[in-house]
C-alpha cells in the first residue's frame, strides 16, 4: 500500500504525532489509531451524524475527512468535551430526560447540540429539530433529545441573564 504520512494535530488538547495511511479517515484514525472510541460510525457517508467531532471548534463528519486533512488542526471528541467539562449541563439534561437508549448516536448528538448551543441563536423546538437534521437516532424517537437540548438552552440563558443582572 502507499506509504504512510506523518501528521501532527491536537486531539482533545494533547498533541499527537502519528503515521497514517493517506486513505485512513479521521473517524478511523480517532477510533482505531488512538482508541478514542466515543466517536462512532454508522454510515461512513456523511448521513447519520454518529461520527461528528469538533474540528477547530466546528462540528464536522469525521467519516468524510481523511486524517491527513486534520494535520495541524485541533480536534475535539466527546471524550475531550467531557474531560474539560464543556458539556456537563448538556450531559446532565440528556441523562435526566433519558435522551438516549443504546447511546450509539449520542456523541454525535452532543457534538451537534454543542454546536447549535454555541451559535447563540434563539432556539425553539423546531429549530432544534432542524439542527439535528443530520443526526440519525433509531432508538429514542428524538423528542427526549429535543427536550434535553431545549432545557440546556433555557438554563444557559437563565444563567447568562443572572450573570448580567
Amino acid at each position, binding site marked *: 500500500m502507499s506509504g504512510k504520512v506523518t501528521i501532527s494535530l491536537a486531539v482533545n488538547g494533547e498533541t499527537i504525532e502519528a503515521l497514517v495511511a493517506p486513505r485512513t479517515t479521521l473517524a478511523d484514525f480517532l477510533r482505531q489509531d488512538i482508541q478514542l472510541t466515543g466517536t*462512532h460510525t454508522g454510515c461512513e457517508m456523511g*448521513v447519520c451524524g454518529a461520527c461528528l467531532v469538533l474540528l477547530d471548534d466546528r462540528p464536522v463528519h469525521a467519516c468524510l475527512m481523511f486524517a491527513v486533512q486534520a494535520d495541524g488542526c485541533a480536534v475535539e471528541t466527546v471524550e475531550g468535551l467531557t474531560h474539560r467539562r464543556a458539556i456537563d449541563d448538556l450531559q446532565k439534561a440528556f441523562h435526566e430526560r433519558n435522551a438516549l437508549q443504546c447511546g450509539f448516536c449520542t456523541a454525535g448528538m452532543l457534538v451537534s447540540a454543542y454546536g447549535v448551543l454555541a451559535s447563540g441563536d434563539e432556539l425553539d423546538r423546531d429549530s432544534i429539530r432542524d439542527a439535528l437534521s443530520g443526526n440519525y437516532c*433509531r432508538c429514542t424517537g428524538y423528542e427526549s433529545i429535543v427536550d434535553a437540548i431545549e432545557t440546556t438552552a433555557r438554563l444557559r440563558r437563565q444563567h447568562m441573564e443572572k450573570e448580567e443582572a
Partner: protein
Amino acid sequence: MNAFAGSIDRPNSYIGRSVSRPNAKRLLEGRGRYVTDLVLPRMLHAAFVRSPYAHGKIVSIDIEEAKALSGVRAVFTGEDLASICAPWTGTLEHFTNMKSPPQVPLPLEKVMWSGQPVVLIIADSRAVAEDAAELVIVDIEELPALADPVDAMSAAAMSKELADNICFATKLDSGGVEEAFDAADTAVEQSFIFGRHTAVTLEPRAIVADYDPSENRLTAHHATQTPYQFQDVYSRHYGIPEANVRVIAPDIGGSFGMKLHVYHEEMAVVGASILLGRPIKYVADRMESFVSDIHARDHRVTGRLALDRDGRITAMDVDDVTAIGAFSSYPRTSAVEGNQVIRLMGAPYDFSSYRANLSVVFQNKVQTSQYRAVGHPIACAVTECLVDAAARELSLDPFEIRERNLIPDSSYPRTSPTGYQFEKLSHQVCLARLKSMMNYDALRVEQAGLREKGILRGIGIALFVEITNPSPAFYGVGGARISAQDGAILKLTPSGEVHCSISVTEQGQGTETIIGQIVADQLGIDREKVRVMTGDTDTTPHGGATWACRGAGIGGETALQAARKLKANLLAVAGLILQAQPGELDIRADWIVETVTGQQRISLAEVARVAFFRSDTLPPETQAQLSVVHHYAPQGYPFAFTNGAQSCLVEVDAETGFVKILKHWVVEDCGRIINPLLVDEQVRGGVVQGLGAAFFEECLYNEEGQLTNGSLADYLVPMACEMPDIEISHVETPTRDTELGAKGCGEAGTAAASAAAMNAVNDALVGHGAVLTQIPMTPTRILKALGTI
C-alpha cells in the same frame, strides 16, 4: 396474583418511579464498550465477497490472487466452513409442514440472493481484507430471479431440497364467515401492500469470535440481544461443549429484533476463528447491513369485514401472502410474523366469525424475520383501515364505530376467534382516554375550518393488542432451544451492597435500571447499592434474554422473587444476631428494622460483616446463605396481552403529496409500570419506527432482485425534523399471573403507529377519491392515489 404494595411513599419504593439510568452516564461520556470498539491481541479482520446476482449457480471461485496479497492470512469458501459446521434449518415443529432448505455459512453450489456472502477473507486489517475481496474472481451463472412473491408461489422450486417455494401455509376458520358475509348489511374489502423495510440499527452487526484451541473454548463478543441462544447455536453447530462457549453481549447500538437471528457472516467468522485459532472481528458496513440484515414485513393482504346495519362487525376474512427471502431464518424462523398477522387480526373487536389464509413464500431476496412488533403493524393496519373504511361507508365517526365494536372491558377473560386468550384488556378506557387527551371534538372543528381554506388535515386512530411475556408456547413447543424462563443471581457483598446478574439483556431500553429498581425496592435498600450486570453467558444464569417484550414482565418477576428470597435469608441471619424473630424484622433504607415500630436495629452492612468475617459469633450450625439463585418461568396464560390506542394528526399537501405529521398520541396499558420515564421513551421510539414504515422506509428491489436503495443516503429513515411530539398516557391493568404485574411495552408504539398514520392520511383525503392501502405512503403514491400523476 399480585397484592402488590407499590406504595410510592415507602423508603426505597422504586417500583413505579421515573428514575434515570445509571448505565447511561457511561454512554454519555463516550465510555461505551461496543463490540465495534473491541480490539484483542492477534486479532484479524474479516471481509466478504458477496454475490452480485439474486440467483445463480457458482461455476468457479478463484482466490489465488487474493491469498497472495500482503497482509491476507486466509481465504475461505463454502467447503472450508461446511466441513466443520453442521447445517441449520429454520423451521418450527408447531408450524405444521413448514419447510426451509438447510443453510451453511457460505454457499456450496448456488447463490440465493444478491448480497449473499460467498467468500470470506481474513486479513491484518479490514482495509486489506477489502482490497483482497476485490481480487477474488467468482464466476456465477445467473439464473432467473424470483423477486415477486405471487409469481414465486407457482414457479418451480428454487431450492433443490424443496418441491415448491412455499415455506409455510396455514388456514384459520372459526366457521360462519360465508354466512355472515351473505347476511351482512355492509361489507368492505381492501387490498394492502406492506413494503419491506429493515432495522437500520445505528451500530451495525458486529462480532469478535475468539477460539482458543488449547481449551477448545470459544468466546464470542457478539452484539446481540440473545447471548444464550448463540451459546447454544455455536456449541451445537460447531460441536463445542456448551460450557466451553461463552457469549458476551456488551453495549449494543440498537437491535430491535434484528440482532437475534443467525447470520451467515457471524457463523462464518466463528468458523474461521476455529480454523485459525485467532480472534477475528467482523463489523458489517452500512451497505452490507442493507443486503444482509434481516428485512421485515413484505406482506400483501386482502381483508374483508362484514357488518350489520348498526355498524357491528359480524365477520372478518383475510388472506396474507408474505415473502421471506430464500431461507427461513434460524432459529426463530420467518413464519412467526405471518402467523401473528393472521392471529392478531381484529383482536380488539367483539365478533366470532373469522377466517384467514396465510402463505409464506420463498423468493430471491435477503431473509425477512422478526423485527420490532412482529406481525402487529400488519394486523393492526389491516383491521383499523377496514374499520375506518366501514365507518366511511356507514357515515359513522371513527370513535363511534369502535365504541360499538370493542370487546367490553367487563367481559374478560376472553378467547379471540383466532385462539388467543386475553386475561384482561382495557380498550374502552383507553379509547375514551385517547379521545379526551387529544381533544378530539375540537380537532374535528379545526379540521373542518381548515378544509374550507383548502388545507387538508387528517385524524387517524388505531387500536392495538400486543403480545408480551411469551411462555414456551412461542418457541419452545416448536423445538427451538430458546428459553422462556429467566434466572438471576443475587449476591450480598461484605459491605452490605448487592450484586445482581440476570439473564435479561440491555440494549438501552433500561433493563438493568428496572431490574435494579425492583431488587432495591424488594430488599429495602438504596438503588445505588445495587449493581446489575447482564449479557455474559459465563456470569449470568441461562435465560431467554430480551425479545418479544419479556424483559420487564419475566425478567422483572425473576428479580422480584430472587430479591424476596435473599431478603428472607438476610432477615434470618439478622434474627440470629439480634436474637429476634425474622418475621418481626424488615429491611428499610439499608437497615434491619423492627417491622412494627420501624426502629433501626442493625445496619445491613453490619449483618454482612458478621456473616462474612465473624461467622464464629453466630450460633453453631448456622450457615448464612448470602447469595441466592432464582429462576422464573411464566405460568398461567401463554402470553400477557397488552392493549392501547393511538392517534395521528397529519396535514397532506395535495399538490406535492408531502405529508407533515403534526402530532401523535398514545394511550397504552402495559400493566404495572416499573419506570414511567423509560416506558414513555420506549413507546416514543416505537412510534417513530412505525411512522418510518408508514411514510419513508422501504427496501426497493428491481425485477432482477437487486436492492436499489441500499445505502443510508437512499433509504429514508425518520429524522428529527420530520417527527412530531408524541403525547403518552397510561392505563394500568396488571397481569395477575405474577406478583409484579408487569407486561411488555417495547413494541406497542410500533404496533399501531403505521395504522394510525394510514387512517390519518385517508381521513385527510376524504372527498378526493383517494384511499391509500400501501405503505410507505410516499409523495408519489399519494399523488398517484389522487390521480395527479
